[in-house]
């Protein structure tokens, strides 16, 4: 260690041996009219200090620039996340609308089918009813034997009525179930 008893030369020798150099602006404060060996030491200190500062400045500048890039990237990321969230919301909205449309379309197709079945069934029921009634009436008016025709007419009419009620019941049931689900 350097003690108060050491001469400047001894102190310098010890500092150099340990590779210890003065740093910072203190070196710049030292007068230029120093003894030669001290001056040489101070010059070396200045040189080393300048080198270290230059290096530190470059590193700090790089860190500063990286920080700036990171900050910019964070802003971009945030904007992208927001954009993505909006796109997701829009997609969900569209999906819901599509599901609703599909449901509506299915219901419409179902109703159209039911309507068609009802129409066909009613045409058949009315057609068969009218045909048998006409046959029965013609036989009665022509004074022909109506025993078989009469029985057939009443049976057929009974069956047709039962079936038509069954169809109406089915339609009402389907309609009620669809309305409840929708």
């Amino acid at each position: 260690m350097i003690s108060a008893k050491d001469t400047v030369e001894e102190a310098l020798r010890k500092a150099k041996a340990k590779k210890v150099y003065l740093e910072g602006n203190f070196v710049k404060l030292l007068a230029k009219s120093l003894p030669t060996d001290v001056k040489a030491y101070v010059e070396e200190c200045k040189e080393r200090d300048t080198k270290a500062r230059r290096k530190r400045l470059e590193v700090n500048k790089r860190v500063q620039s990286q920080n700036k890039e990171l900050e910019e990237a964070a802003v971009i990321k945030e904007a992208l996340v927001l954009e993505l969230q909006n796109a997701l919301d829009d997609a969900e909205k569209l999906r819901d609308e599509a599901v609703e449309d599909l449901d509506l379309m299915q219901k419409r197709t179902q109703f159209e089918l039911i309507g068609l079945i009802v129409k066909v069934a009613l045409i058949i029921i009315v057609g068969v009813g009218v045909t048998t009634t006409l046959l029965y009436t013609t036989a009665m008016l022509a004074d022909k034997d109506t025993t078989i025709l009469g029985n057939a007419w009443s049976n057929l009419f009974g069956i047709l009525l039962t079936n038509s009620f069954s169809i109406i019941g089915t339609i009402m049931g389907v309609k009620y179930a669809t309305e409840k689900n929708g």
Partner: protein
Amino acid sequence: MIDSILLVDDEDLFHLVFEDACSLLDMTLSLEALNSSDEADKLFKQWFEEGPIDERPECVFVDLNIIGSSFDGIELIRKINNDYGNGVVIGIISSSDDNQEIDKAKAVGAQFWIIKSDEIEPRLEDFLKDYSGYENKTAPFKVYR
């Protein structure tokens, strides 16, 4: 060489960059850095009211937007120039080059505007060349781009 410099900037990393750049350019031997305009305001108020006036820095560099402060750099310059007796070379050091802000700074008595970038040394070097003009108030307002 400038006798003493005060830097008011919220970014600690820039304190180091500025200190090293000043040292390499032999700009000053005495540099103090503060993180907020409130701290600077308090010091200038104290120097103005109680003295001693020789503790005041010779030149002040103020950032435009100082995060964590009650007011920005332009307001600090206005206060120093109007409320605390002026007497320092003062200007803005900022990454912004917004003309409206530059005009505002000029209006409150800023003498220069240095744009922060990766290459700060050439701008500080140019500033140093013009410094005597700022000191005796003969140099016009200048933007160092």
